[in-house]
């Protein structure tokens, strides 16, 4: 069998989702954002919600998400994506509304908006990319930075007496009555990517069915911010992030 017998349109089994634009992504090589964008595009396509999705961009690395996934996006002020999503969902109850936020956006400047939107039980889905660092601004310490982890603003490692402790926003979310589905996933290996896709899909379906607020945390890498290669970043994440941010469902009241 020759190569041209295999490479035929009818034999195509996997490719870039059609909702993903040709625009080259500005993310660093190996960044988890690209993967999550791809999953979101695949899920929206599979659900047939291309024309009925309104997504809210954060401020952070994913600020240009609207360039890459071909659905309607709103660019919210820093941290205000859940507030923006709440209003959109209340005005358009039949639309699929989700926010896409990083740890600087959701766990720092937008903590109030995020927690109150979840506590009100807004029927939105929230995707939370936790890479324990401020990626866009050059690798400064984030509220989710691990103890002892070195960043640009804590070059000797994060210390409890000086910087406090990492914020587990997903654990807080699981204690709120308004949330229906809270889970923590990762996108480092093929099985984890499949699980993350399933989780995001469930969050989107909860939003459409009006079950309450869903939060999907994706424990991610920031190869540039961590000063590692994409491979080393994945290994570092498995070694250091997973013990602190264990994967799995924290709450699921929909089942």
């Amino acid at each position, binding site marked *: 069998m020759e190569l041209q017998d*295999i490479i035929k349109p009818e*034999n195509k089994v996997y490719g870039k*989702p059609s909702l993903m634009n040709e625009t080259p992504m500005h993310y660093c090589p190996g960044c988890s954002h690209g993967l999550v964008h791809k999953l979101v595009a695949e899920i929206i396509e599979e659900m047939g919600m291309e024309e009925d999705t309104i997504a809210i961009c954060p401020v952070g690395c994913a600020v240009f998400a609207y360039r890459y996934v071909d659905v309607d996006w709103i660019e919210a002020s820093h941290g205000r994506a859940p507030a923006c999503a709440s209003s959109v969902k209340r005005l358009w109850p039949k639309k699929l509304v989700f926010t896409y936020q990083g740890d600087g956006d959701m766990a720092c400047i937008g903590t109030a908006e995020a927690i109150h939107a979840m506590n009100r039980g807004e029927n939105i889905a929230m995707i939370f990319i936790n890479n324990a660092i401020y990626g866009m601004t050059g690798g400064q310490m984030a509220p989710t930075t691990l103890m002892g982890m070195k960043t640009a603003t804590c070059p000797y490692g994060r210390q409890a007496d000086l910087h406090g402790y990492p914020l587990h926003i997903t654990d807080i979310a699981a204690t709120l009555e308004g949330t229906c589905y809270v889970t923590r996933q990762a996108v480092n290996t093929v099985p984890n990517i499949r699980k993350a896709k399933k989780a995001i899909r469930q969050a989107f379906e909860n939003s459409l069915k009006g079950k309450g607020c869903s939060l999907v945390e994706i424990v991610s890498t920031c190869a540039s911010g961590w000063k590692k290669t994409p491979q080393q970043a994945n290994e570092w994440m498995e070694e250091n992030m997973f013990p602190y941010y264990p994967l799995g469902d924290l709450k699921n009241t929909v089942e």
Partner: protein
Amino acid sequence: MGKMRGAIVVDEERCKGCNLCSIACPLNIVKLSMTVNHKGYNFAEQTDWEKCTGCTSCAIVCPDGCITVYRTKED
């Protein structure tokens, strides 16, 4: 029994050479090229297409969606 035969096509200009596909490939047949694209990245390429089964692992882990996978059953 027909063997599964696969092949990948890499969007070389979109590839950023993160090497995640090469790590994910169970048969170790995706590697970074010795040449670079216009952005200066060593892009991914398949080294031994005769072994490929079209498992899609490389394409699933690709953050930029550069890899298209084709698969068919050999008669």
